[in-house]
């Protein structure tokens, strides 16, 4: 497929890897955070981690909307469906997120709740129009990439006066989360790792552009390279970060220039600001309460805001005691450091959110990398030892 296959060429990847290996300084260690789950997935799936020199470490960031969605928000949706007979529509990603009382949306569905998986926000609004006798709530999650479609359906629901449709808004913002990782006192207390640069979001940046990161690169002296999700993009992005670190530079560079412009998609931004406003604070799994890091629906659209319509009150719920998702989301721990990883917590029955989405650090490591760290046993050597015994 055009614009995909040519960005997955193995020979080119090996050449970029050789370039990275030639340019890194042996006495310097490079820790780069890829913010997005899309990058985490690409790094695991295409074996990029294995192509990097040992002193270049990739830290998986919190850019997976499913992974940072706190239990309490899922509980709100489950209670709407189970206790109030609402039809919940949501993206497939959220279906298996573990919630309170050993429930998830998919388990609630098995108990008889009307929960529908939709491909698009548009499908949720269509369902509401097809079932005028039912209350239909769209559980909307995602970063700036996914927010404009939700804004469009809210605009359309108001224009067409679809009164039985509303949105439970859990949309979060990328730049504020990146800033929070670097400066928040709480996060510092919980522990963070030194980060030398960021692989910047790909599809989020199509919408918001490259400008929002500029202030951040300048203020915190951290290089940012906006990078596509294909493996060659990621390799090239890492090479560009290595070059910035070597040169002592900290600027925003754009590797994904085929889709990202400095100003982004202005039509989408305008629409989002007409429908949404900043939320004072929002709880992120792993990061805690992050000020001005999420969106809520403007009062003009109150009739389509599920939180107002059903008078929902958010309650924070702590994670499973032994789950290390919080530390993994901040890059302090690696998936294999968690006691639950691969034993009771697997993609088939996830305990923590990082195991749910295939973009989560744990799920990506489980699917593509869990045998990489296992010590190699020389079969011949093992045979000799056993004979000697």
């Amino acid at each position: 497929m055009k614009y995909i296959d040519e960005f997955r060429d193995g020979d080119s990847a090996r050449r970029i890897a050789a370039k990275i290996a030639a340019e890194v300084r042996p006495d310097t260690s490079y820790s780069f955070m890829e913010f997005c789950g899309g990058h985490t997935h690409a790094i695991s799936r295409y074996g990029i981690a294995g192509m990097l020199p040992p002193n270049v470490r990739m830290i998986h960031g919190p850019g997976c909307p499913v992974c940072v969605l706190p239990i309490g928000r899922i509980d709100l949706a489950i209670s709407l469906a189970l206790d109030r007979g609402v039809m919940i529509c949501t993206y497939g990603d959220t279906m298996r997120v573990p919630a309170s009382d050993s429930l998830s949306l998919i388990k609630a569905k098995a108990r008889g709740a009307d929960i529908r998986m939709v491909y698009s926000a548009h499908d949720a609004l269509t369902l509401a129009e097809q079932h005028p006798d039912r209350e239909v709530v769209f559980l909307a999650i995602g970063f700036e990439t996914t927010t404009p479609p939700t804004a469009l359906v809210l605009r359309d629901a108001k224009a067409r006066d679809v009164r039985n449709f509303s949105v439970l808004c859990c949309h979060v913002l990328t730049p504020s989360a990146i800033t929070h990782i670097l400066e928040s006192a709480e996060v510092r207390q919980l522990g963070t790792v030194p980060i030398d640069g960021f692989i910047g979001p790909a599809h989020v940046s199509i919408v918001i552009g490259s400008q929002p990161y500029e202030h951040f690169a300048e203020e915190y002296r951290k290089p940012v390279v906006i990078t596509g999700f294909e493996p060659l993009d990621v390799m090239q992005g890492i090479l560009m970060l290595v070059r910035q670190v070597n040169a002592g530079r900290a600027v925003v560079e754009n590797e994904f220039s085929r889709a990202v412009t400095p100003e982004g998609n202005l039509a989408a931004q305008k629409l989002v600001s007409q429908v949404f406003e900043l939320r004072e604070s929002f709880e992120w799994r792993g990061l805690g309460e992050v000020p001005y890091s999420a969106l809520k629906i403007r009062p003009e659209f109150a009739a389509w805001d599920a939180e107002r319509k059903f008078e929902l009150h958010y309650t924070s719920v702590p994670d499973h005691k032994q789950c290390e998702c919080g530390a993994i989301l901040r890059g302090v721990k690696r998936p294999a450091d968690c006691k639950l990883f691969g034993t009771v917590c697997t993609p088939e029955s996830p305990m923590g959110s990082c195991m749910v989405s295939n973009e989560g650090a744990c799920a990506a490591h489980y699917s593509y990398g869990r045998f990489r760290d296992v010590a190699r046993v020389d079969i011949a050597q093992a045979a000799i030892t056993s004979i000697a015994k």
Partner: protein
Amino acid sequence: MCLALPARVVELLPKLRAIVDLGGVRKEVSIDLVDDAQTDDYVIVHVGYAIGKIDPEEAQRTLALFAELSAAQNTLQPSQNMREML
């Protein structure tokens, strides 16, 4: 979650909708957020909405950057071999 794929616009439909082709698979999507999309443009499709367009020239430039790397590598090769010979 932010998964999105480049797809070619094959037909513009009324109400800012369009048929796109993704490696032979055809799907109807909304072009409300990219209302200047034309037939044969490549748009980036996310949850049934085109959120941006691919700039073919920029894509070519990025690919050329990878190719330059390989050209540089090839010119490097003989000198490396020379060093080995020495």
